[in-house]
């Protein structure tokens, strides 16, 4: 059996490796670099630079350090490049060790069951589309010059002194955090009435408050009406609820979302949904039975971990296994400062699905570790079914909460009840104690939050 995987991002490389474990012959075609957008231009560079900025922020605000540090952008970018290279080489090594043939070049559909890459024809029994996504453009704000997309942000020659970030989703909030942490003057513009509009409203409010507290000017319900490049800066006219506003900055970052990219494979005539995503069933099979799709090209949510999970399901089905992509919880994590985690259902979603949701909320200031690491801003919220007491969702804002999302997902996947959770001994002093506290709050007996 022979599989051709198009795209070497998280979906593509994970699929290729899993396919080899299952004894399938694999050719992976990649136009740029294995690791895809994620390793080379998105997840990893952003997290590396956010880490660098966090080291700076923590040092600059620590009363116990003498000597004001300053942030050297070029050195941070150079270090980030090393991180990316190390991880990309790691993936290359894994593909090689697994016996995956990697072909460089842009793949297009060939006749019958084949793809063509630079004139070479490669036949297959199965095709996996793992071609990812591309940025959505704003007509009134074309990229070029001082107007950049997320990719360019991580390789700027110099750190801008002022930035307007357009788009208050995950990538926008991360970019605004990054630049504000290293001292830039930052505006963040979002068309909806709150940042991170898909998430729990309390989360949005906390993130807005935290960013504003660090000096970020947040403009919600605001749209870019016009952009004027003034040479050394760009001036944006925003139309907001309160009328027009003008903001100006050295750099404008457009982060208004992504869209699935079937690219040349659109010509296969696969069924697409209204967003342009390749439609699949739970086995990740498209409308052509020998073609599967996984990752961003199969539609939102746009996460590498979703890509991994779908990719594995796709190749397992090719191998005849009956696996399905049907997770109860796909964590959303935003590595801003503070970090954001959203796992499972919000109360609103839960109610819509017929649950009788209740929620418990605990401020991070109740958690010893948060106080002892100067990170007590934020909160955690647990959504559970009032009848069965099953955990339906966990939503958190706070420095360091990203590492708690895995446990939250496990709770939802395992149908844990708040009663179960309250009995899981969590180590002191860690942020993870917030889970016990949430469960106890749900049961009406919190230890570290005063009962009203």
């Amino acid at each position: 059996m022979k599989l051709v995987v198009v795209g070497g991002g998280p979906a593509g490389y994970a699929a290729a490796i899993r396919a080899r474990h299952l004894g399938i012959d694999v050719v992976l075609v990649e136009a740029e670099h294995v690791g895809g957008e994620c390793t080379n231009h998105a997840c990893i560079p952003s997290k590396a630079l956010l880490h660098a900025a966090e080291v700076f922020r923590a040092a600059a605000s620590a009363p116990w350090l003498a000597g004001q540090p300053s942030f050297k952008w070029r050195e941070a970018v150079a270090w980030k490049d090393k991180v990316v290279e190390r991880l990309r080489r790691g993936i290359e090594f894994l593909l090689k060790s697994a016996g995956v043939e990697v072909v460089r070049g842009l793949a297009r559909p060939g006749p019958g069951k084949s793809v063509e890459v630079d004139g070479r024809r490669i036949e297959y029994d199965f095709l996996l589309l793992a071609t990812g996504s591309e940025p959505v453009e704003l007509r009134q704000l074309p990229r070029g010059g001082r107007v950049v997309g997320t990719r360019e942000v991580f390789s700027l020659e110099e750190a801008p002194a002022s930035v307007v970030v357009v788009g208050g989703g995950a990538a926008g909030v991360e970019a605004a955090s990054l630049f504000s942490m290293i001292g830039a003057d930052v505006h963040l513009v979002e068309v909806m009435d709150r940042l991170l509009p898909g998430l729990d409203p309390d989360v949005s409010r906390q993130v807005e408050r935290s960013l504003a507290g660090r000096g970020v000017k947040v403009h919600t319900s605001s749209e870019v009406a016009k952009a004027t490049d003034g040479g050394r800066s760009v001036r944006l006219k925003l139309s907001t609820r309160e009328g027009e506003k003008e903001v100006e900055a050295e750099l404008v970052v457009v982060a208004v979302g992504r869209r699935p990219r079937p690219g040349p494979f659109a010509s296969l005539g696969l069924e697409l949904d209204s967003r342009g995503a390749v439609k699949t069933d739970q086995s990740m099979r498209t409308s052509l039975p020998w073609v599967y799709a996984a990752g961003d090209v199969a539609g939102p949510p746009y996460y590498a971990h979703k890509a991994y999970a779908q990719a594995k399901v796709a190749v397992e089905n090719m191998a005849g296994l009956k696996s399905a992509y049907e997770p109860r919880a796909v964590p959303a994590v935003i590595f801003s400062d503070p970090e954001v985690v959203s796992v499972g259902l919000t109360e609103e979603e839960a109610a819509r699905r017929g649950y009788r949701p209740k929620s418990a909320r605990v401020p991070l200031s109740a958690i010893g570790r948060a106080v002892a690491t100067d990170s007590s801003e934020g909160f955690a919220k647990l959504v559970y079914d009032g009848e069965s007491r099953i955990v339906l969702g966990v939503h958190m804002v706070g420095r360091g909460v990203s590492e708690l999302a895995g446990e939250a997902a496990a709770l939802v996947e395992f149908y844990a009840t708040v009663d179960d959770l309250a009995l899981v001994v969590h180590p002191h002093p860690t942020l993870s104690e917030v889970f016990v506290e949430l469960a106890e709050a749900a049961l009406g007996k919190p230890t570290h939050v005063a009962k009203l």
Partner: protein
Amino acid sequence: AEAAQQAPREVAAMPAARRLARELGVDLAKVKGTGPGGVITVEDVRRYAEELKAKGGEAP
């Protein structure tokens, strides 16, 4: 389909149990869970499938 599947009073089963049930064509609603809080485990699905086979002789 997604809404129906996530609807309340769904059968509580561990991820691998859900997956094995699909593999074996077992209806989770008929399986008795023995995990924490009555959650259906992989073992429960396996046992149920074996019992069915012993009873009916045919695949579950």
